């Protein structure tokens, strides 16, 4: 790791704290990226622990382990922690590591604020986790915390509200940083339409974040004042409406799911060309597709609420708008497939995860179109079908892409190679157990098993047992991932600066640049001289 960090030198002129304070005070985007990734993995384990609790309770009919109230807290906090604590920070961690390197920037635009965006997260996480231990327990109204359930609840709900405020603030700061870095810090010659797809998807994601995170902050603020100060936003007796909450929440919530998947698209769009040894098929259509998805995502929110009682015109609009998203998404899937077409493909672990991503994400996409159809949605609303749908999108979509990204860039980050054989085991175990867990949930949902209930009718017993076995397997498999990463960092074989011969983006040329001229000196050169060298590096890359 040291090598990489020196190469990508900084203009730091003062003292450098050591030990723990090095991490606490750091302004280096790589340190911060590393902290984001480890934090998100820790949260992934916490959220995973809650998932194991849920699956253990659902292993058999009847109440065995978790009282219903605690079960509800588990599902609520599982959702919140996985969405805000695991998936989102993981992508921000990837952005921190990769965006400056991929666009040839010295660091993030606001390096100190970057550090703060990270260090807000542990505060929010401690609010969420410790809310289990306050009187009344953690929030139990589901990760969407609809009122009136969330206007009841105890102190745990207030803690959750403040946690969401903080997570939102962190995301907004992170997003502003990423936008500014991309718009203002690109190396000369790196025009917008030459940027790697990962950078593009993050730029668009960051716009979505500044658009919707403040709306979430507004929503939870209304919830807070309804709970504690007697306002009536979500109280019909005062002229408000609980449905109002759902509208504002999903105005945030639907773009939020694209916030979690667009960077995944970006990762896959980097990995597939590398291992197909072909440039990405249809680069500009990929950019426009990403932008279309982001824009459409802001006008489909009410498909989460078809059953609340809405005018038919409204249902039709949101149904068609939702289905329209399948078009740009289809463009992407087509382009990835066309990139592989007649490529000289190899199947290293990042590629396996990317191909797994395409297969399973398409299943999740299709079940999403199914859910978008109003009459069907009215049937499957609040059932395990919806659970299956969004886990196909978020686990085999977002999470698989994160795994792929870690395997893809770990050699760059650590300077060492991961164990390919173990990585392949990790992938295949993930594939097997993931499908075992969630595929059967489609059947459960279609048969009518409601979500967020700790007990179920006897006819659901077999599939639930299968799903739980899959869930435990999937959870244990992630310990293997932890082992692989630690083994790689500690004792992996030394990796070349460009371990993948098909890699074309700028981060792989960093050491090359280093050999031409020590970057330490580069820092002290005038801008114009530095530009010439960077130009040369970009040319070399081509």
């Amino acid at each position: 790791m040291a090598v990489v960090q020196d190469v990508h030198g900084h203009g730091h002129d003062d003292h450098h704290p050591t030990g723990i304070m090095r991490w606490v005070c750091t302004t280096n985007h790589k340190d911060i990226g590393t902290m984001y990734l480890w934090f998100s993995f820790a949260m992934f384990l916490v959220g995973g622990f809650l998932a194991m609790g849920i699956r253990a309770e659902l292993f058999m009919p009847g109440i065995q382990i978790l009282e219903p109230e605690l079960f509800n807290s588990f599902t609520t906090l599982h959702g919140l922690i996985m969405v805000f604590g695991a998936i989102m920070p993981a992508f921000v961690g990837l952005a921190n590591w990769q965006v400056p390197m991929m666009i040839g920037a010295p660091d993030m635009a606001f390096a100190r604020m970057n550090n703060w965006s990270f260090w807000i997260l542990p505060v929010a996480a401690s609010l969420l986790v410790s809310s289990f231990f306050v009187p009344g327990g953690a929030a139990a109204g589901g990760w969407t915390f609809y009122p009136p359930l969330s206007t009841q609840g105890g102190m745990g709900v207030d803690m959750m509200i403040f946690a969401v405020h903080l997570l939102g603030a962190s995301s907004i700061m992170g997003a502003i940083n990423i936008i500014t870095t991309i718009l203002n810090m690109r190396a000369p010659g790196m025009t917008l339409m030459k940027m790697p797809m990962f950078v593009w998807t993050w730029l668009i994601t960051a716009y979505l974040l500044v658009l919707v995170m403040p709306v979430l902050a507004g929503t939870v603020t209304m919830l807070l004042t309804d709970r504690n100060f007697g306002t009536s936003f979500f109280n019909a007796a005062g002229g408000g409406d609980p449905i109002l909450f759902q509208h504002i929440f999903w105005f945030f919530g639907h773009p939020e799911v694209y916030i979690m998947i667009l960077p995944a698209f970006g990762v896959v769009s980097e990995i597939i060309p590398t291992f197909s040894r072909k440039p990405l098929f249809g680069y500009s259509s990929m950019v426009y597709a990403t932008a279309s998805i982001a824009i459409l995502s802001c006008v489909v929110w009410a498909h989460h609420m078809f059953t609340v009682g809405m005018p038919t015109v409204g249902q039709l609009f949101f149904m068609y708008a939702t289905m329209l998203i399948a078009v740009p998404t289809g463009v992407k899937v087509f382009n990835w497939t066309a990139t592989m077409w007649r490529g000289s493909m190899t199947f290293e672990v990042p590629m396996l995860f990317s191909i797994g991503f395409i297969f399973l994400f398409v299943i999740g996409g299709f079940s999403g179109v199914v859910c978008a159809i109003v009459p069907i949605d009215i049937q499957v609303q609040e059932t395990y079908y919806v659970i299956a749908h969004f886990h196909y999108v978020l686990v085999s979509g977002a999470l698989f892409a994160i795994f792929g990204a870690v395997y893809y860039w770990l050699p760059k980050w650590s300077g060492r190679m991961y164990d390919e054989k173990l990585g392949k085991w990790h992938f295949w175990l993930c594939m097997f157990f993931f499908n075992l867990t969630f595929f059967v949930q489609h059947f459960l949902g279609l048969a009518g098993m409601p979500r967020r209930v700790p007990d179920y009718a006897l006819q659901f017993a077999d599939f639930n047992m299968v799903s739980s076995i899959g869930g435990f397997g999937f959870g244990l498999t992630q310990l293997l991932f932890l082992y692989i990463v630690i083994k790689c960092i500690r004792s992996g074989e030394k990796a070349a600066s460009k371990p993948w011969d098909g890699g074309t983006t700028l981060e792989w040329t960093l050491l090359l640049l280093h050999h031409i001229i020590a970057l330490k000196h580069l820092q002290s050169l005038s801008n114009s001289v530095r530009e010439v060298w960077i130009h040369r590096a970009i040319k070399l890359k081509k």
Partner: protein
Amino acid sequence: MSHGTGHYYVPSPSKWPIVGSSALLFLAFGAALTMNKVEPGYWMLAIGFAILTYLLFGWFGEVARESESGKFGEQEDKSFRWGMSWFIFSEIMFFAAFFGALYYMRQLSVPWLADMEHQLIWPGYTGGWPTAGPGITETFTPMGAWGLPAINTMLLLTSGVTITYAHWALKKNDRSGLKKWMLATVALGIAFLCCQIYEYGHAYADLNLKLTTGAYGSTFFMLTGFHGFHVTVGTIMLIVIYFRCAAGHFKPEHHFGFEGVAWYWHFVDVVWLVLFIFVYLL
């Protein structure tokens, strides 16, 4: 690029972020405990605010010193512009959530509560705006638009003009004009806040209009309250800029600290105009 060091300024490791996070830790836990009437909550809030104050002085002071020592060149300046623009955009979206709630209540939920079906639950409720909703029977008088709020509109609009005069003075390197117009802007901001505090007192004492007055009270106080909070923050920022001007900071061609605050002040101004129309006037 007269100043700047030839490469992008990346600050050295800093304690401020973690100081900020510890302030947030105390504030968040303190607020959660206070709202649930648990004793140490107040103390935690107080500690949180103390750390926050230390943070604001420390962090912004450091940035001001960096700026004055010429560390920020053109590219850094551009970063600040992008950053501030998107920050203000995020603030607009925050207010949009509350304006959206106002729209929804006025146009949708209140009429629904007064329709035929709901007569079973709320017999005799006729809807209409302003309303405290069908279940809150206390009567209240809504806030009129053409008294104090109209004066407040004038105050804020005028302050938008005075800060522009200050900006022009700064660009012409007219330091005494700069300070004079800055002082005028600060005074107008404070006058606005005083009027707003008086209006709240009037609402509670004479109009029986409270935060708990259903849909009207919720939207009125949350929108004007958050706006007032932003004016307070903006005024503090203006005061800081005034003292920086007095200390000789900013140059005619390099003064983003000033401009950022001016942008923020205009944003607060525009939000007020929208608020004046939709909360007071209509």
